[in-house]
């Protein structure tokens, strides 16, 4: 950021040693729509609530789960526009890796680079931290992997995780609060298996699975 008036970082330490802007960013995430991911022995599943502001919104135009590479997908909780920016940057980083090595980028490397971008925005002039936490699901030579990346830039590998509203009750929440109301139209599910290809299930497929569960 060239303008001298904004050459300082807006994320500064408080006397108690906290970065208050990041805490607020996590609050923004915590009030976002729930998303969760589960790592199985032979694949990873990520899902998110797709609650739209009005029934008039064309739900097919909203894609909360996105592909970063053919074998890595991502979902978020928090601010959608910030998510889109991160997806764009991550896709570019994955492609740059491929351009250099002609190998698909390992999940850990992509997560590391995305986290580095998020960290940059907590220590640069004139920018604010991203208001999203990401759940990255991928399958590479090290098997299935699930990572959560926070606005601070820290990342964790999970066997199962949830983010957004009602984090602690996420599973119970889905079982109790949405019973009978989940359909292919208000949840999104992304899945990656041994074929190493990440894809989002169509609403019809989700409905089929829901019918089986019931």
């Amino acid at each position, binding site marked *: 950021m060239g303008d001298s008036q904004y050459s300082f970082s807006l994320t500064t330490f408080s006397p108690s040693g906290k970065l208050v802007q990041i805490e607020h960013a996590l609050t923004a995430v915590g009030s976002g729509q729930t998303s969760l991911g589960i790592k199985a022995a032979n694949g990873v599943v990520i899902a998110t609530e797709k609650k739209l502001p009005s029934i008039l919104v064309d739900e097919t135009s909203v894609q909360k789960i996105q592909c970063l590479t053919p074998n890595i997908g991502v979902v978020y909780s928090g601010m959608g526009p910030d998510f889109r920016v991160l997806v764009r940057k991550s896709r570019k980083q994955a492609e740059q890796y491929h*351009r*250099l*090595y*002609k*190998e698909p980028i*390992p999940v*850990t*490397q992509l997560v*590391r680079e995305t986290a580095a971008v998020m960290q940059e925005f907590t220590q640069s002039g004139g920018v604010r931290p991203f208001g999203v936490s990401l759940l990255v699901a991928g399958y590479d030579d090290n098997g299935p992997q699930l990572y959560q990346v926070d606005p601070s830039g820290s990342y964790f590998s999970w066997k199962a995780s949830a983010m957004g509203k009602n984090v602690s009750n996420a599973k119970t929440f889905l079982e109790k609060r949405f019973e009978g109301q989940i359909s292919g139209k208000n949840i999104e599910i992304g899945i990656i298996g041994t074929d190493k290809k990440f894809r989002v299930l169509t609403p019809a497929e989700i409905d089929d699975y829901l019918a089986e569960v019931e």
Partner: protein
Amino acid sequence: MQIFEYNGSALVAMVGKNCFAIASDRRLGVQLQTIATDFQRIFKIHDRLFLGLSGLATDAQTLYQRLVFRHKLYQLREERDIKPETFANLVSALLYEKRFGPYFCQPVIAGLGVEDKPFICTMDSIGAKELAKDFVVAGTASESLYGACESMFKENMEPEELFETVSQALLSSVDRDCLSGWGGHVYVVTPTEVKERILKGRMD
């Protein structure tokens, strides 16, 4: 004065049965004057990947240092050794970055890939890769090397026979080239060990 023939060099890599051999001459010259007879042209990147660099010696040394630098960072980040095919792509990308002011080198890459499958390739000074299943050659003696390898090569040679073949091909080719020679340096790499040998040929 041709820049690629300033120092003189001869490099060859050959594929055997679950093994490969990479060999070079040992002469370092300044045009017709011989400066050193123990010059190192083949470098180890890791236990299963070797890089030979022919052409201008200063560029070969700098390029080697840059590649080792990149590989060390790769090892730290990815916590594994780089695969030969991946390394070849990295070298190709690095060379093309200098498209309009290139390194005057021709690399020869030889390594054991997944499941110990031997991999060899060479490329020109701006990164055009040339993969081969049998052998690759580079340097001022390359034309003689092509002929010698073509006639002496057999598929699926065991390490000992591969060593003999590579050595004979190298020594007979450098004898026809005044800018390379003064012995040979041969590495034969199998999944379990690396055998390094020095050859004594016509010392001229």
